[in-house]
């Protein structure tokens, strides 16, 4: 998985490419752990993300909780496979997906 980070003031945008699974979820967790401290809002761009496993969902949930106390978190450009994972797990109702 490749993580690409763009910071615009306190607006943080992170684009993911590849697979957010058991092996790669800790990489995103570490990145967010350091980056979210100075961020007011977060956009996760999933345009090039192939799929997400439960380990990835865990990281998204904790980021969502951190950001809901600030300017919020948005997930964009979700593909069909990731969308289905969000739908069956009820994450579609929790996350802001655009």
């Amino acid at each position, binding site marked *: 998985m490749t993580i690409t980070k763009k910071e615009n003031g306190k607006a943080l945008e992170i684009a993911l490419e590849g697979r957010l699974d*058991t092996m790669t979820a800790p990489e995103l967790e570490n990145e967010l752990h350091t980056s979210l401290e100075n961020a007011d809002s977060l956009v996760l761009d999933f345009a090039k993300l192939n*799929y997400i496993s439960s*380990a990835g969902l865990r990281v998204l949930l904790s980021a969502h909780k951190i950001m809901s106390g600030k300017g919020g978190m948005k997930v964009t450009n979700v593909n069909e496979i990731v969308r289905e994972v969000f739908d069956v*797990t009820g994450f579609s109702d929790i996350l802001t997906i655009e």
Partner: protein
Amino acid sequence: MKEMTVEARGENVRVLTDWADAELERLECPLKAQMQIDLAIDEIFTNIASYAYAPGTGSATVTMDYDAESGMFSLTFCDSGVPYNPLQKEDPDVNLPAEERSIGGLGIFLVKKTMDDMRYEYRDGQNILTLMKKIS
């Protein structure tokens, strides 16, 4: 039928998904079904790697098979760790708000939702879990 035995360690998820992907590409499996099968391997094998032999180590044997007539692809995971039937695990409540969410059990739940069938048996000291997915 193809078979692979690996040590039940998290990093071998990639070895197994690469192995399955090569076979699924040969079978001209649609990309969506391939990704769902990869996801299932991630969830199931990670569980085996984390719990089956803890705190020790052991191995897992995975076989894959394809029935051209029914279009059904099957994956069977065998380990000789502690008996565990993931199908008996209660489904998580997916309607809870974020604050009340615990994430346990979501992995197995996802596999149940994306595969066409799952079977479990404990035989000769082995957990045998079979996943079935129609790919054509």
